[in-house]
């Protein structure tokens, strides 16, 4: 077993991890390294399409306060408004900083960063849509990830690529290191450190249909959870309304922005019934619910579990005419605005969206909840926001909370870079002043024991079977719609699956080199933890807010539920719930109408 010593360690090399790495490594007096199970440029940040929101006002007047209002409203008033203010204020600065790092944003004719409209982003507290999403074609996330990685190379950040982190080491009430396995050799390494920042991304793979990558298994979140850190707002998981049927590949909101409409099996534009004013441009949670209701009432296409997203020029023009607009679109326009989407559909569905409607269904997309932190990305471990010294988290795995019950499009990328930056700075500052805590004896013992147990698991259930059972269960009972009975059965089921996992799992590969079979099994263990935490939190929240829709409690209930949930895992494995009030500064909760 190898042991390394670094003052500060970053786990995960997506947008949040790389931004933190850049900032932490600017502090010359400390040694920093990044540990990532994927090669950095493979991180899921690269999949983000639409844009990054910042009130730059390149194209028209905009203020960060308006951005903050939209974010709070989008969150169904569950976001902490102090954090939202920090994010929206710093967004402007951080986007310019990205540009100074060479990020190739699209340009306005004057040469400024180009911005476009996006769902929920408005001028002057809801007056009308505003251009706020800074973008590089429909590849914004790719550009952010590449740019940050390039800067890390320039600044000679130390990387441990394809090292999977298995455990967090605590000692004397603070962080002492992590345990990771070098995937290429199977060797376990211990990293002795003063500070750790988790930026391990989301866990869309808990669900069957997801826009998330195979690597999005929520490892970091589950690791700290097992080490006693609570998880905040786990019941809020965003379902994006438009994923390619059966595959979950994301079809950006931009399609509807360009005039695309949702159609059921009767050829009806059903959003007219659910959101009479803005119809297909209502917020993500509203549309996902509407699609589900259509499917449930047998109005899915062929009675199956999907509907159509129709962006054919004739359809769009018909609706434009009905709406009294003069604008008309044609084939060439669609080709120029949505090249990647057309490519996905042509490649994977063999259909041309210009000629045929796209079969879509809601797809599990984004974790609003996660590891609770304050605005400096310090992980806090109770309702009083007590920090755990040396532990930080940023990006999708963390919950600051700026997204509350429903994230606005473009706000995740902002979250990554703003809080990645703050976290990087804060951890460097901490690591510079702190002493190395002593490493406990055999720091990797638990992780090693777990790996060995899994390696030798020779029961009768394959990892994939168990994973599918979990994904299926989450999709049915902890998806867009929930109710107590179904969630209850999900909790029971997940505990059953956990029992099988512990006693009857089968792992084929006993080797060391690239033993992905073993690591898949290990990841499944983390996902089961998160599935249980999600279901338990969902059962607890007896109201409907944002992405959390309880059929047995269809109304938002500010009197009882304007608060965050914190789910704790006790050493014996039991889960407990606590609450934390929402921070409200400027915007009092109102009914959310668009």
């Amino acid at each position, binding site marked *: 077993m190898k042991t390394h010593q670094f003052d500060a360690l970053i786990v995960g090399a997506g947008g949040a991890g790389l931004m933190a790495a850049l900032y932490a490594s600017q502090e010359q007096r400390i040694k920093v390294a990044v540990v990532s199970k994927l090669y950095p440029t493979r991180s899921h940040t*690269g999949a983000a399409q639409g844009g990054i929101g910042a009130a730059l006002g390149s194209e028209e007047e905009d203020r960060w306060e308006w951005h903050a209002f939209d974010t709070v409203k989008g969150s169904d008033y569950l976001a902490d408004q102090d954090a939202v203010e920090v994010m929206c204020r710093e967004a402007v600065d951080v986007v310019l900083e990205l540009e100074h790092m060479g990020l190739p944003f699209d340009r306005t004719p004057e040469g400024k960063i180009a911005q476009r409209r996006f769902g929920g982003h408005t001028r002057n507290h809801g007056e009308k849509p505003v251009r706020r999403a800074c973008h590089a074609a429909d590849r914004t996330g790719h550009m952010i990830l590449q740019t940050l990685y390039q800067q890390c190379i320039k600044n000679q950040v130390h990387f441990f690529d394809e090292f999977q982190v298995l455990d967090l080491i605590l000692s004397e009430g603070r962080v002492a290191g992590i345990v990771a396995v070098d995937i290429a050799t199977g060797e376990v390494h211990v990293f002795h450190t003063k500070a750790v920042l988790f930026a391990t991304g989301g866990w869309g793979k808990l669900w069957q249909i997801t826009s998330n990558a195979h690597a999005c298994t929520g490892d970091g979140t589950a690791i700290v959870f097992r080490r006693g850190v609570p998880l905040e707002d786990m019941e809020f998981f965003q379902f994006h309304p438009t994923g390619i049927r059966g595959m979950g590949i994301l079809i950006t909101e931009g399609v509807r922005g360009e005039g695309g409409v949702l159609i059921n099996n009767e050829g009806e534009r059903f959003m007219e019934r659910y959101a009479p004013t803005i119809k297909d441009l209502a917020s993500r949670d509203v549309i996902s619910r509407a699609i589900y209701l259509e499917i449930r009432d047998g109005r899915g296409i062929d009675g199956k579990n999907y509907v159509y997203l129709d962006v054919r020029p004739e359809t769009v023009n018909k609706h434009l005419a009905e709406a009294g607009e003069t604008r008309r679109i044609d084939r060439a326009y669609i080709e120029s605005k949505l090249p990647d989407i057309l490519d996905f559909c042509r490649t994977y569905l063999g259909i041309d969206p210009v000629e045929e409607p796209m079969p879509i269904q809601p797809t599990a997309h984004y974790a609003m909840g996660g590891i609770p932190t304050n605005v400096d990305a310090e992980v806090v471990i109770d309702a009083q926001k007590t920090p755990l010294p040396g532990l930080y988290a940023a990006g999708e795995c963390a919950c600051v909370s700026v997204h509350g019950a429903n994230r606005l499009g473009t706000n995740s990328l902002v979250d990554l870079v703003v809080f990645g930056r703050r976290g990087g700075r804060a951890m460097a500052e901490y690591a510079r002043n702190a002493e190395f805590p002593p490493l406990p004896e055999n720091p990797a013992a638990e992780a090693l024991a777990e790996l060995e147990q899994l390696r030798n698991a020779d029961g009768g259930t394959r990892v994939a079977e168990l994973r599918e059972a979990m994904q299926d269960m989450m999709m049915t009972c902890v998806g867009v719609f929930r109710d107590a009975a179904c969630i209850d059965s999900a909790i029971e089921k997940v505990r059953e699956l956990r029992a099988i996992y512990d006693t009857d799992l089968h*792992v084929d590969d006993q080797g060391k*080199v690239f033993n992905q079979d073993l690591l898949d099994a290990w990841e499944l263990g983390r996902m089961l933890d998160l599935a249980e935490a999600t279901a338990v939190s969902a059962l607890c929240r007896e109201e409907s807010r944002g992405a959390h829709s309880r059929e047995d409690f269809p109304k938002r209930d500010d009197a009882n539920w304007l608060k965050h949930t914190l789910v704790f895992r006790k050493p014996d494995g039991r889960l407990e719930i606590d609450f934390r009030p929402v921070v409200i500064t400027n915007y009092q909760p109102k009914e959310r109408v668009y």
Partner: protein
Amino acid sequence: MKVTLRIRRFNPEHDARPYWAEYIIKDVAPTDRVLDLLHHVKWYIDGTLALRRSCAHGICGSDAMRINNLNQLACKALVKDLVKGDHGTIQVEPILGLRVIKDLIVDMEPFFEHYRSVMPFFVNDNPPPDGEFLQTPEQRARFDDTTKCILCAACTTSCPSFWANGTYVGPAAIVQAHRFIFDSRDTAAQERLAVLSQEDGVWRCRTIFNCTTACPRDIEVTKAIAEVKNAINRGGVD
């Protein structure tokens, strides 16, 4: 339909040399990805099969491999384009010119070493402006194509010049350099051109075009390389 999947397999812990393994997979849909077939093998037949993948839709660059003797992303190669009729064979091998670690996984380090050698990062040491660096849409369009690269290595490992000699920096590194050389905001074009003008730089490109065919992002790789060659010969950009 039915597909026989022939996979070039190698486990350094057991095998002296790579061998072909065949798996017959039933009920394959024509729209299935090769990645789906590989997953089927890995999840339900033999968990020891090793391959890199993550996004599953051609965005992350993990799963470039040689499918029916052509470099492709397993997640973008569909069965219907590889098999005609209702039974056929699909052959999957690791990409060429890099050491095979296990099954479809190769050692990417030499590839990334070439990548890092071309200074693939934005350089402009002047104090930044208050706002953004201004750049016209035309200046931005000049290097748009090469910003799309996902570092999948499909191009470099399809290049006979790279197969012949791994010291050639390879098309991917040149594409990455191109992205900065032609960026109006960047100030280190000369340094990059100097690096690429060395023996193992652009001259090793013999205009074979395998790279352009292989690129899953439809980057005009050979064109980018030629532009860099011309820039070197002219002593700079424009």
